[in-house]
């Protein structure tokens, strides 16, 4: 599937992909990181978070791995961006950059 078909991303999706860009994270870390990235504006419930993760897994944008460090004896899962996910995030970032640039120009009166 062409990367452009994934665009534009929803804000929640962008935030999840963004917080997985630097390193793989488990569910609770994603929850906290999304809250921090959005400055407290986007706070997921567990249902919404895992709904979004399930969709991203189905789309192949993230993958689910066993965490080496287990929590309280339980095998914890972590989520990692796939190369497709990374590509989609890069494309979305470029799209937003273009949009921002365009907006700046318009606001400054540079483009009629």
């Amino acid at each position: 599937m062409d990367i452009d078909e994934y665009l534009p991303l929803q804000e929640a999706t962008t935030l999840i992909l963004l917080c997985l860009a630097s390193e793989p994270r488990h569910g609770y870390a994603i929850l906290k990181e999304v809250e921090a990235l959005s400055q407290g504006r986007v706070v997921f419930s567990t249902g919404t978070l895992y709904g979004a993760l399930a969709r991203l897994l189905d789309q192949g944008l993230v993958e689910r791995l066993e965490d080496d460090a287990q929590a309280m004896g339980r095998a914890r899962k972590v989520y990692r961006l796939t190369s497709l996910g990374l590509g989609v995030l890069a494309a979305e970032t470029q799209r937003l950059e273009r949009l921002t640039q365009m907006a700046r120009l318009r606001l400054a009166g540079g483009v009629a």
Partner: protein
Amino acid sequence: MKRMAVITWIHKQLLALYPASYRSLFADEMEEVFRRALQERAGHDPLKLALLLLREVRDLPLSLLHAHNRQRKLALATQESGAGMAQHAHFENVALRLRPWVFVMLITLIVAVALHTTWLVTRTSYSGNREVPRLSGSSAIILEDEGSFVRLPQTALRCTATGGENNVLCTADVGKETLQFSITIVGHGSGSYSGTCSGSYATHPIDCVQLFTRAKDRSMPPVLVQRPRALADAQWQELARRYAFIYPTNEGLVQWGLAFSSLLSLAVVVVMWSASRADPGRIEGRIRSFGWLVGSMVAGIGFFIPLAWLLLMLSFQLEKWIERF
């Protein structure tokens, strides 16, 4: 600590509403994430804890809908790839496509309960009671029973002022017994009055629920009283027969309609939920089995009739408490 354990337990039970395959993938993680979020907020502001719980409750229906829709799509995709399954496709498609509707029904049920509660509050304030406009300006005692009103015409009452013009004692012979009220009226200007009232019938105390404030007649405004618990049916019926001015309201209809729709919705939910929990490899055979479908329905109704009845009784009791306070 105990409270946290209860909340975690409830959350765990709610996870059972997700499709089986979804649960096997995410349930442990969701439980863990929720538990950690709960622990983090438990030691802080109670408002943050309340917000966390509200968010979970608010997002649950939509999350369930998405999860079941995902499951349905996966099942349909699997089905399309298996040519040998084609002969049973009709039954499977019907079952799978019905599933989102089950959640629509569930949401409808929640809305129905919310509306029912609103209706209860509206009704108990009496400002929205359809019987009130008919009676305002006239003098009468209205005895309230569940779902009906008995109006006693003023001519049946003997009222005398006692201890000043604002204190009135009224009596009426009802059968072999005497109905008696002592009413204190307080004027608020602009023709509105309120008051307190207590009475008895056949040695049973009667609680006056409310004096209507719109009544113009200070000597005897309409009074709403509640049927005493201890009053026997026969005595109450005697009152009703004697002053047979009964206004049936739609209260019973609404409540039984709600009970029936709740029951039906819940029965269907149980059937479809059982189907979603079943092993995907065996579900086709089960859904084809009409007997299993009927059996599940009967089991669902058998379980939910007592539950619906209990909820109804609780709502009646709640209504009475609201009326009292």
